[in-house]
């Protein structure tokens, strides 16, 4: 699924834009626990999370995750925004909760990182 489609489906706002809007995102993972993300992630994926700590961006950096969506319109602090710019990771926020955001994307054809 293209990044701009994800933004449209989630009614998301862009906080940091580092990617081509036509970039293909292969799959997604929804989690608030960062080790779970690193255990089940795949590269070039989207992370849907309610956690807005600096370690979210670090986790994305290590796991090769290209974009993060913060649910419930959570706005990350300035240091997180700066780190994302530096590490080339796109940050989005959506008014949807994690369940709804995940459901909308899944229903539109974006599969889970875990494949089940």
């Amino acid at each position, binding site marked *: 699924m293209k990044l701009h489609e994800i933004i449209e489906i989630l009614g998301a706002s862009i906080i940091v834009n580092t990617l081509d809007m036509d970039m293909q995102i292969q799959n997604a993972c929804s989690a*608030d*626990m*960062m*080790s*779970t993300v*690193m*255990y089940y992630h795949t*590269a070039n994926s989207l992370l849907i999370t309610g*956690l807005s*700590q*600096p*370690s*979210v961006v*670090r*986790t994305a*950096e*290590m*796991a*090769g995750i290209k974009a993060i969506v913060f649910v419930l319109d959570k706005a990350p602090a300035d*240091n997180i925004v700066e780190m994302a710019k530096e*590490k080339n990771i796109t940050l989005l926020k959506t008014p949807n909760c994690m369940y709804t955001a995940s459901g909308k994307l899944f229903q539109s054809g974006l599969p889970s990182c875990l494949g089940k």
Partner: protein
Amino acid sequence: MALDIEKPIEGNFQIIGGEFDTAGGASSHLKSKLVELGVEEGIIRRASIATFEAEMNVIIYAAAGRLSFLITPTYIEIKIEDMGPGIEDLDQAMEEGYSTAPDWVRDMGWGAGMGLPNMKKNSDEFKIDSVVGEGTSIEMIMKLP
């Protein structure tokens, strides 16, 4: 293909317990070096994840620790030693989902009980030693094809 480097590349980092905001500095440094050297993406990801998890464990559980890495033409070695409480039952600690992290750590997104399993999963060789009341040391090796 083995890495074309004249001599091994080393890195040494001090990690301070409780420093969540700067967590991941050592892993990020290692990742940059591996990218610079043109290491295959999958191996970079495994080494970065294993190192980040190790760093987080020091930050979550220990007063302080030391992390070092060594990149040779044929393998990456990562060593971590901490001054932490030590682990009473290593078999239990290696189980997926087992964690002794307090709630405030979970609120920060850690303590899922996947840290040690994640390190093992991403290493070709994994060794852990721990003495209760003294600390824990971990050695990980990722082979370079």
